[in-house]
């Protein structure tokens, strides 16, 4: 299979199994994410895509199998450890810090890359105050990159959905990740907003950051992905370039059989 021949993979998943009680959400998944590319994971609802993300980012440990990031086993690590290693993510149901402004959301994303001591902060140590100034600048640079600089002081929950999704991506980027996992960045967005999200994802790739993408918007997937893996009922049924996937009979059957009249071409 294509995955095994990839040179310099950033993320390798081997024989991953995830069972919740009697329900097997993922069965023997092998997946490889090449460095610096956009890899998409698609599949009908309930195929196990979000579960896969949750395992990669440490929300729960896999029942069986191995995940390697930069050659290092990470399966079973806690989410904040995995974030520190360089994997960041967004959530299917936008999980912004709604009690903060746009700027503060991105600043909080920098948590890993700064020093933060509870008592040092309380005593307002000069070094921490200087750091805070630099932090604002870094966060503003990121807001410029994602195009939300003008909204810096607006509360996160006051933004329209499209911008909330973009902000969540920006917050993920603030952690200086090597790999970002985007869980349905275009869900619920209109065409213009989807296009903006697609542009942003491509810009992220150009920065040298690897993108792992779960998405239902087929046009977006086909436009921007370098590689696609297809899950159905917890199993990987296909993997390849967008063109290969579009012509794969198993994939067409999985989608048509499930939704009816769904044209992935």
């Amino acid at each position, binding site marked *: 299979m294509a995955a095994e021949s990839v040179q310099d993979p950033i993320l390798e998943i081997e024989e991953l199994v995830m069972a919740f009680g009697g329900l097997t959400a993922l069965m023997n998944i092998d997946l490889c994410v090449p460095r610096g590319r956009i890899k998409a994971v698609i599949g009908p609802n309930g195929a196990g895509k979000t579960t896969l993300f949750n395992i990669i*980012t*440490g*929300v729960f440990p896999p029942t069986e199998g191995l995940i390697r990031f930069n050659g290092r086993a990470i399966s079973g690590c*806690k*989410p*904040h450890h995995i*974030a*520190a290693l360089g994997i*960041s*993510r967004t*959530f299917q149901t936008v*999980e*912004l*810090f*709604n*009690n*903060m*402004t746009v700027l*503060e959301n991105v*600043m*909080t*994303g*920098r*948590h*890993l890359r*700064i*020093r*933060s*001591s*509870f008592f040092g*902060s*309380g*005593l*307002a140590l000069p070094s*921490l105050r200087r*750091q*805070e100034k630099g*932090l604002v600048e870094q966060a503003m640079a990121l807001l410029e990159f994602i195009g939300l600089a003008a909204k810096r002081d607006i509360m996160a929950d006051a933004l329209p959905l499209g911008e909330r999704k973009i902000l969540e991506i920006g*917050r*993920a980027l*603030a*952690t200086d990740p090597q790999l970002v996992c985007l869980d349905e960045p275009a869900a619920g967005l209109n065409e213009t907003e989807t296009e903006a999200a697609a542009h942003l994802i491509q810009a992220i790739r150009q920065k040298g950051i690897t993108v792992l993408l779960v998405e239902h918007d087929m046009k977006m997937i086909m436009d921007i992905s370098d590689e696609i893996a297809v899950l159905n009922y917890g199993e990987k049924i296909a993997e390849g370039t967008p063109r290969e996937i579009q012509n794969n009979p198993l994939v067409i059957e999985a989608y048509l059989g499930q939704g009816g009249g769904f044209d992935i071409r």
Partner: protein
Amino acid sequence: MLRIHKAPMLAGALLILFFPWIARQLPTISHYPDLMVFAGIYTLITLGLSLLMGYAGQISLGHAAFFGIGAYVSGVLSTQFDCNPWLGMLLGAAVAAMVAVIVGAPSLKLRGHYLAMATLAFGIIVNIVFREEARWTGGPDGMIGIPGLSLFGLALDSAEKYYYLVWGIVAAVFLFSVNLIQSPAGRALRAIHASEAAAAAMGIPIARYKVIVFAYSAVLGSLAGSLYAHYMNFINPATFDLFFSIKLVIMIALGGMHSIWGALVGAIIVAFLSLEWLHYFEEFEVVVYGAILLLVTIFMPEGLVGAPAKLMARMRR
């Protein structure tokens, strides 16, 4: 999130500084510095609770326990072991921090109602210990003869002197908390409140932060307890019961949970209500508190401190 400005802090500091002088000019409020000692003691606890509940979003219905731990450690050490009161106060804070870590590490994994129940039970258990360990604590009758405090040879033997001690500590803690809120650590706490999943994905060690802020609030509760014991010279378990834990929650709910100012406003108002203005109601005092909590929750979820901004926003619309 309400911003913390320097101007109101300065105004507050001046008011605190001159309040005893003002009170002396007006006979009807000449005893207010005494009330303000208690208000300051309550504020110390609510400043911690505000960080724990309002900022980090972790409920506690057992903080009377830490208040009591401070009071009893100070009381027992100074009366039965001739321990220096300041040292007793430090040891009380250390004990409170230790208890908070031991209790907090497992129970802060719980959320919402479950955490409320766990802390409620913890508060009740500690109160039972105060009542039953009569050999040390004097049991339900309490203990008398706790010495007062003195600072550099100056005995803090009047309400006014004690007032300055308590409010000096409150000011320092307030400043510390303000710095904390506007720092990465403060944002981490608010992040945990908003979304634990996202906070963890940003690399914030959630469990650690929860335990630290719980211990911090416990230490403040304990300091308040020690200050109370050395001021009253007498303590008994009834002061540190479940009702006081609830009263603390009423304080920060009334003042406004999402702002550190709320802790200050709520504690002062409830102190005056319970020590002065509600005497008329006698046993029905509880009903008044119930009504306050109900009305605040329904009509002013942001508390008194958040209400003006909300009202302005509504008028503009």
